[in-house]
């Protein structure tokens, strides 16, 4: 599986954020997208996820599943965690597992993996920022998707959480997954770096 972009261009609010960007990620590989604030890291991830329109260039996925679009094979972990405060931790995760469908595993096992097993019945409103992040990460584990798009994945995570996340990412890569992460902090796994944005 190979995800590549050629001459990717993105315009937001009349301002050109990205232009002529080339990138390439293969199975088992992680790409860390780095750059100053406002350089278009999030925009790049959202374009790949199909949440922003591509203003120019192309994005291709080779040897993915033919019947699915790129967005349907992607996990997007954004700034916002897509969890409802009124529902319990387990209800939130079970909903996404049922709604997103596909190759899924037991939500309780995923919660245990990220260290939230004890809080399964707690309403998500009572989780701390780090715990909410762990819950979002549990979503990546509960439903299997080959491509992970991660936007600042380790923000709000404690040291134990960061190493846990590094291990989970390593497992995902070992299974042949690919990872694109917009990040300022090191990911904890071996990753190529894609620098974007103008140096000033």
């Amino acid at each position, binding site marked *: 599986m190979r995800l590549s972009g050629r001459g990717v261009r993105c315009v*937001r609010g009349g301002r050109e954020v990205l232009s002529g960007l080339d990138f390439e990620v293969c199975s088992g590989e992680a790409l860390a997208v780095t750059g100053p604030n406002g350089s278009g890291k999030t925009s790049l991830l959202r374009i790949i*996820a*199909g*949440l*922003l*329109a591509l203003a120019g260039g192309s994005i291709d996925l080779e040897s993915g599943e033919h019947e*699915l679009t790129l*967005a*349907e094979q*992607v996990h*997007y972990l*954004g*700034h*916002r*965690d*897509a*969890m*409802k405060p*009124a*529902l319990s931790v387990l*209800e939130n995760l*079970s*909903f*996404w597992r*049922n*709604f*997103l*469908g*596909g190759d899924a595993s037991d939500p309780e096992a995923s919660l245990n993996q990220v260290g939230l097993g004890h809080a399964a019945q707690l309403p998500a409103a009572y989780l701390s920022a780090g715990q909410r992040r762990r819950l979002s990460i549990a979503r990546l584990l509960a439903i299997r998707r080959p491509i992970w798009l991660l936007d600042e994945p380790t923000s709000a995570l404690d040291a134990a959480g960061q190493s846990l996340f590094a291990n989970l990412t390593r497992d995902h890569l070992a299974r042949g997954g690919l990872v694109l992460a917009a990040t300022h902090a090191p990911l904890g796994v071996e990753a190529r770096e894609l620098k974007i944005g103008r140096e000033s």
Partner: protein
Amino acid sequence: MTALAALVRRDIRIALRVGGGALIGVLFFLIVVVLMPFAIGPDLALLARLGPAILWLGALLASLLTLDRLFMADHEDGSLDLIVMSRTPLELTCAAKALAHWLAAGLPLIIATPVLGLLLNLDASSTLAVALTLLVGTPALTFTGMIGAALAVTLHRGGLLLAVLVLPLSIPVLIFGVAASEAAISGPLSFGTPFSILCALSLVSFVIGPFAAAASLRQGLD
């Protein structure tokens, strides 16, 4: 299908929990209708004549009140991104969300109607006629209102805009809803004609609403 069933279950569950919107609509409906007899005065004949119109207005405003959160909450917490990216067609997802909203916020209005009919001096058969027209007509309000909710999703405080966008679309439903109720109560028109048109309006909104909402959600992505 499991995906849509999961979405309907989740939305209803959220609406019924603390801070959900299900009760707000019914309470508003209750306030509007309870205040009316005090404003109009103790003229029983007048109350009975205005009854269907008051009930319909109350239901219309109550359903507008809760509609603006239909997509806004999902947009704010990022759920909408995942919903748009999912394998379920967005049109079906929109239809499921509207259905869940109607079950949680629309159906309670219809259940409350018989109680409120007493306050407006409507007899049992008249109340039943109004409840029946509401049962058939309120889904149209939800499904057309969904279009406005989808358009307003990227605007903060889109509530008022929603009302401006949706009200013209709701007027036919209001006209035929009240006409059908009054035909059933006092005649001389037959009940069937306006009631069939009301049914038709609902059916049209089932088709147009999800497609228009999905299109405007896709357009509004940022």
